[in-house]
């Protein structure tokens, strides 16, 4: 099946499925999915069921709320249809989607849900789900991503995870994980809940811990208002003031390239690789949070991360055959350091905080991308601070030792420079920094690496500090890179995905690592099995009136 090109850029005035109303410090995000506006035309998005297009708008709203509305401290997400909050992912859409698309879709949806939790926890923009009708499957999972769940007590609206009894798959967007890990629902109740098609209503839902508050229709609005007031009081966001408008991205796309203002991507199909090139800023960058707001989406730190994020999503969905991503940078190291300085100097400013959090989320996207990541450090590059995280995110990194000796006037050798950015700004899904993760269980090595923070490290120093993998000199350089890309391209992409996910996340499990590595591994397996996707499986039989026919053997 040829999937249509998927574009992740949108804006509220183009939303088909959501409306965003701002009322002082409160935002109301209302879901009313247009059944005819699905990404493909072989399904209808009935009863507030969603596909990727719906989630792209949600993702856009989450981002804009953080940047464009500094004064908003509570976001209420609610349903815009009668008796229905959200019916979850559209089943016909899932039944007709390729396996790869399903996996990618789930991953992106998970990332958006994580972004909602991140907004609550770190942007202090608290999300409340006002579940004013039935929330089934992905619909309840959306509510689970919010910090509070209010459920209308109308004797019919229920929360449910009916994936197992109805569809023979898992609630794959963090549903079960959040039920037990975040809401601390007892395991036996979680079992009862997840196998009950009709779900749980009213008082029982509160008793089991599935929702926080209930109210009948008559006092429903009061409950919402009360909860908004309570949560707003906890926030440290500014009261009003100008936001940063996320203006449309300046993007040029060809068959084999993608060009923004500081980020460019070129695709090399024979080696199945894409090279990301990031250009250092030219000219002065904001030094304070207020200057950052004034510079808006043009500020290099924000512009770059927006472009990088969009490029990652584009490649993930639209270039699935490009299995290796190569990262390069070019420009003045000091210019990058100067641009980044504001993130440290004015750390309490809301816009600074948002910029950092954006980078953290985007770097996390790389951590969970099913691609081989290779970072290449050459003379003229600028892997400093935030950009140095691209060295640490890589599955393999190459740094040129020395310079281009054949040139009449060889440039100075490549260097990398760690900053404070690597010491806590950008946690991975395992809640550790990339540096901690790299040296898991090796405190000496961690100390050695942190001791060189702020220093320009040449290849030997970087090897000594264990920050790069290989440091060929100019004689071996081209060959080593070529062979690495060719070799990578010859391996099974499935095995590579498994291998990379296997070693990327050492250390403790977190809700995120469970969702991304454990749950998605199980879900992927289930999604491949005949019991779900075979001709007699649940996804195919759903809605046909005939029951699925399962192979009863436990595997």
């Amino acid at each position: 099946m040829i999937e249509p090109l998927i574009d992740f850029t949108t804006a509220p005035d183009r939303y088909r499925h959501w409306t965003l109303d701002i009322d002082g410090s409160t935002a109301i995000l209302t879901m009313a999915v247009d059944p005819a506006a699905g990404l493909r035309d072989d399904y209808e998005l009935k009863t507030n069921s969603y596909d990727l297009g719906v989630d792209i708008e949600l993702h856009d709203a989450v981002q804009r709320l953080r940047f464009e509305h500094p004064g908003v401290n509570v976001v209420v997400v609610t349903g815009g249809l009668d008796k229905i909050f959200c019916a979850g992912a559209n089943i016909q859409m899932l039944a007709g989607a390729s396996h790869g698309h399903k996996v990618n879709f789930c991953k992106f949806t998970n990332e958006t849900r994580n972004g909602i939790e991140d907004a609550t926890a770190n942007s202090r923009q608290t999300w409340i789900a006002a579940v004013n009708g039935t929330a089934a499957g992905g619909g309840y999972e959306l509510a689970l991503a919010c910090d509070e769940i209010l459920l209308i007590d109308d004797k019919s609206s229920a929360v449910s995870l009916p994936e197992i009894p109805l569809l023979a798959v898992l609630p794959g967007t963090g549903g079960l994980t959040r039920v037990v890990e975040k809401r601390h629902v007892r395991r036996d109740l979680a079992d009862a809940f997840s196998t009950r098609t009709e779900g749980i209503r009213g008082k029982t839902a509160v008793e089991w811990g599935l929702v926080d508050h209930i109210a009948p229709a008559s006092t429903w609005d009061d409950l919402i208002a009360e909860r908004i007031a309570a949560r707003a009081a906890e926030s440290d966001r500014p009261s009003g003031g100008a936001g940063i408008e996320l203006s449309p991205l300046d993007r040029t796309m060809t068959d084999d390239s993608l060009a923004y203002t500081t980020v460019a991507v070129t695709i090399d199909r024979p080696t199945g690789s894409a090279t990301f090139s990031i250009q250092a800023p030219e000219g002065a960058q904001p030094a304070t949070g207020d200057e950052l707001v004034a510079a808006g989406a043009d500020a290099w730190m924000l512009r770059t991360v927006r472009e990088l994020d969009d490029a990652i999503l584009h490649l993930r969905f639209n270039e699935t055959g490009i299995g290796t991503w190569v990262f390069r940078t070019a420009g003045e190291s000091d210019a990058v350091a100067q641009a980044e300085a504001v993130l440290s100097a004015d750390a309490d400013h809301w816009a600074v905080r948002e910029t950092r959090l954006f980078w953290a989320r985007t770097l996390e996207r790389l951590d969970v991308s099913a691609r081989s990541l290779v970072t290449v450090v050459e003379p003229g590059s600028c892997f400093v601070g935030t950009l140095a995280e691209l060295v640490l995110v890589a599955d393999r990194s190459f740094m040129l030792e020395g310079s281009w000796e054949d040139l009449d006037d060889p440039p100075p050798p490549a260097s990398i420079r760690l900053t404070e950015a690597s010491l806590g700004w950008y946690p991975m899904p395992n809640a550790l920094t990339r540096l901690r993760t790299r040296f898991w269980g090796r405190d000496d090595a961690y100390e050695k690496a942190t001791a060189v923070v702020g220093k320009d490290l040449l290849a030997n120093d970087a090897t000594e500090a264990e920050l790069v993998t290989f440091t060929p000199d100019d004689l071996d350089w081209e060959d080593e890179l070529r062979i690495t890309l060719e070799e990578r391209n010859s391996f099974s992409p499935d095995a590579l995905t498994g291998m990379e996910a296997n070693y990327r996340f050492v250390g403790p499990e977190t809700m995120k690592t469970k969702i991304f590595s454990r749950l998605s591994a199980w879900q992927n397996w289930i999604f491949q099995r005949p019991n779900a996707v075979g001709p007699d499986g649940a996804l195919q039989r759903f809605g046909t009136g005939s029951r699925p026919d399962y192979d009863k053997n436990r595997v």
Partner: protein
Amino acid sequence: MAAVDINAKIPNNVDLAGDRRLQRALEQWQPKFVRWWEELGPAAFARNPVYLRTAIDVGQEGWANFGHVEMPDYRWGIFLSDREKDRKIAFGDHKGEDVWQEVPGEYRSDLRRLIVVQGDTEPASVEQQRKLSLTAPSLYDMRNLFQVNVEEGRHLWAMVYLLHGYFGRDGRDEADEMLERHSGDADNPRILGAFNEETPDWLSFFMFTYFTDRDGKYQLASLRESAFDPLSRTCEFMLKEEAHHMFVGASGVGRVVQRTAELIREHDTDDIHQYGGINLDVLQKYINFHYSVSLDLFGSETSTNAANYFASGLKGRFQEERRDDDHLLKSVYRTVPDWTESGIGAREVTQLAALNETLRDDYSEDCQKGVDRWNRALEEAGINFTFRLANTSFNRKVGTFRDHHMSPDGKPISDAEWEANMDRWLPSDSDRAHVLSLMTGVSEPGKMAGWVAPPSRGIHQKPVDYEYVRV
């Protein structure tokens, strides 16, 4: 180093003077090689001028330059046969595509492994033969030994060139390790088992050059077919030199047979060991041993590695392009021997799976030719004895017959039968002791030890009594 100097020091046709990477790699490796040669190369006459052939070019004129040279000053060079224009891959999944001038990343590890295994045998045999110069039966033979040794050295250079030129840092590390592994070193042995046994005497040396170097010929010939063009061209040139090694073996064994025949007639008895010769049955036992050990070097009857190498285009068959089949071998079949209780059975497998066996068949056929020549010499001398190659199931340590005793004519036998007959089929301790007792060095020009006949002619039109080694 100036281009002229480097080309004089290391004769080559790979533009060494213009290749900075290769130069630097070789500059680091070459002193290690010289050190290795001095420590583990020939134990005696190491500093005597030897009448050696040196390749300074691949053409008719250049590849065989003769003159006296002290071995440590030998100019080990790097030569590839001329590039064949528009050469295409002749077999496997890439058949019909252009050959590769660079190593494809996908096959880097496999190609490196093939080159390392081949390369490792070259210095190994120098190490195995290092003490033989002490007991050379003539200056002519000593010179031949040294010629073989320096050429094995050059073959090492050829493989090191590929590792240095095409495999980056990994290649350089592997090149170093080829000098760090030593034949028979318990901690750091050579890769293939057969190359960890010392060559104890000159009869073994002749047998080794006849049988084991012939395995090398077939391995090189199948690598000569490789889609990786620099490997192909390297092996093609090595094959030229390998031919000399097999000449040393074929003529060496032939001269022993001739001398034995002379002694039999002179003393009118088959048992001439008391007259300082080697009995025909002992020669047969040495043939049995060296032939069977060399058969093992080809590997198991069926091999997925060999199939992968073929399908990927890394290693073909002997004279691949002359063969009349699809060169894919996935749907053509052949039988391979298979051990059964009642004897040698057969099972049918794809030719792709049976590449080792096919190469072994080619090898065996080639081995038979020398045996026929030796038999003709016996016949002409009026001696009623025929040398035979043992059945390929005999004395095998690799493949289907590995765990089973088989007689030289290919019958399954019991452990007891094997024990009772072993010394009739393979050199016994006393056979080896007798052969060893004959090994005394002869270093007067033109003189031969009593167990071997003189060659029919000398080297490069020089007389047999020429001072091939200045002692």
